[in-house]
C-alpha cells in the first residue's frame, strides 16, 4: 500500500527533545506505537504552557482531544533521543489541528508523523469557546500557510 513520504524537520516550527525511556520499548525492541501518542500529548501541552501561557491547573479554558492520528514510517527505540517537531495545520475559532513529527536523534526524516486535534472548551460547562488570545498568538506563530 502507498505510504506517505517522510516529513522533514524544516516543515516544523517548534521542537522539543524528549529522552525516551526503558519502558517505551515493547517486545519488538522498539518504541511501542501507542507511546508516540504520549509524545504528541507531551509536546503539544508543553508548547501551550511555554509559549501560550497555559495554566494546566487553573485555566478556565482547556483543550480536549477530539482526534489523534499517526503514520509510522521507521522505528525509534530506547535510548534514542526523541525530537518532536510541532506545527499548526489548521486553526479554527475554537479548534486547532497540530501536526507532529517524531525524529530519531539527529535524523532529518521523520520516523513517524501524525496529527492531534484540540477543541478548547470551558472547564466548567465543557462547551466549546474561542481559543484564548495568548494561546492563539502562539499557535499562529507556528501555523502553516493556509492554516487559517
Amino acid at each position: 500500500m502507498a505510504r506517505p513520504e517522510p516529513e522533514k524537520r524544516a516543515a516544523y516550527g517548534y521542537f522539543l527533545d524528549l529522552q525516551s525511556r526503558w519502558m517505551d520499548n515493547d517486545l519488538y525492541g522498539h518504541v511501542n506505537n501507542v507511546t508516540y501518542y504520549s509524545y504528541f500529548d507531551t509536546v503539544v501541552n508543553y508548547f501551550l504552557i511555554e509559549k501560550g501561557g497555559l495554566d494546566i491547573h487553573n485555566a478556565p479554558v482547556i483543550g480536549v482531544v477530539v482526534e489523534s492520528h499517526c503514520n509510522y514510517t521507521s522505528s525509534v527505540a530506547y535510548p534514542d533521543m526523541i525530537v518532536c517537531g510541532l506545527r499548526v495545520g489548521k486553526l479554527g475559532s475554537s479548534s486547532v489541528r497540530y501536526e507532529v513529527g517524531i525524529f530519531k536523534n539527529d535524523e532529518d526524516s521523520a520516523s513517524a508523523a501524525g496529527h492531534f486535534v484540540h477543541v478548547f472548551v470551558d472547564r466548567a460547562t465543557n462547551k466549546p469557546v474561542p481559543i484564548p488570545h495568548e494561546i492563539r498568538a502562539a499557535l499562529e506563530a507556528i501555523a502553516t500557510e493556509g492554516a487559517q
Partner: protein
Amino acid sequence: MTEPLDWRPGDFPYSIDVPTRWGDNDMLQHLNNVAYNRMIETVVVHFTLGPLEIDWRKDPIYPIVVESLCRFHRQLSFPEIIRVGLRAGGMGNSSVTYEIGMFGEDGDVPGATGHFIHVFIDKETQKSAPIPDHIRAKITEHGMQA
C-alpha cells in the same frame, strides 16, 4: 457505510472487555487520549493472538502497525469497563485495516472510534509480504457486516 458515531456494539464480530485503571485518567478527570489508543492496540493484539492464531515469536510472517487513528466522541472514565469491538474494514494484498469502537457502561453510543492498519512483514527480508491464506480467511470472517 455509517458514520463512526452510529457504530454500535453489535456491529463488531469480535470484542473484549477492558477494565480501566486509576492511572488511565488524566488531570481532566477522564481517560487520557493515550489510554484509548492503548485499548485499540489491545483489541487488535488479542484478535491476532486469538482468532488469527499469530505467534509473533515464531511465525515467518507477522504484522506491524503502520497507521492508527482515534476519534473521541464522548468521555470515558475510570473505573468503567470498556467494551472494545473490532471488525475488519478492508484488506489489501499485505495490509488490513481494523475498525474499532469503544463503548462505556452507560449505553451503546461509542465513546471513541478509530482504525489501526497492520502490514504483514516477512521476518527474513523485513519487506511486506502477502497475508497468508489461513489468516486472510479468518480476517474475512470478521469483516464488516452487510
